[in-house]
């Protein structure tokens, strides 16, 4: 009964990512899109938090590319998906929770 949680705000600007992570189930997934994609790579202040996550983590690669971050190394716990991959994630989960 896993939920796909979608976060679209940078944690440097809003606390949405932390607020989401503090409440979701271990079997859930988190997809970082739009400005949230900036913390999908190594070297950020959120690397430790995201590396310690029990949940599966995904980032939308076009958003990463748009921000010039494809030259950085992805976090080991992070999987990049393209738009078809996004759709696949939606179909694989019981429900979607877009954290606004």
């Amino acid at each position, binding site marked *: *009964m896993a*939920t796909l949680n979608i976060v679209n705000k940078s944690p440097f600007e809003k606390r949405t990512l932390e*607020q989401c992570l*503090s*409440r*979701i*189930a271990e079997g*859930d997934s988190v997809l970082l899109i739009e400005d949230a994609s900036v913390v999908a790579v190594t070297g950020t202040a959120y690397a430790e938090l995201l590396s310690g996550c029990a949940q599966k983590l995904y980032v939308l690669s076009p958003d990463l590319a748009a921000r010039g971050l494809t030259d950085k190394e992805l976090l080991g716990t992070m999987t990049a998906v393209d738009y078809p991959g996004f759709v696949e994630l939606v179909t694989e989960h019981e*429900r*979607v*929770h*877009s*954290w*606004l």
Partner: protein
Amino acid sequence: MEDEYEGGVVKKFLYVNRRAPHGTVYALESLETVLIGAAFDQDVSVLFIDDGVFQLKKQQQPEGIEVKNFSKTFRALEMYDVEQLFVESESLAERGLSEDDLLVDVELVSRASVHELVDQQDVILSF
């Protein structure tokens, strides 16, 4: 999990409110959407977390900022068969509030148990 009613399928909807009222239109729009869900005989629950708990604060007087006082509508939700209002206790405590500050009866849930509520739903709508 899905029951039929004469107009179609009944799904379990959870509305998640995370913003304080009046500063933005999110809280009012959420409430409107809750009423629409209930009007279509859906199984509707509402969860208040983070600043969303301020939406249920007693004694709101937004007339001074020329905003409609829609907080009273929360008391009418019962009539629309929206009877499940959940509030996260940590969010209340962080803001110096307790259950006594709220204008309706609610069910308190802990931060750690929020996902259990989410797991029971067909649809999540976040505001």
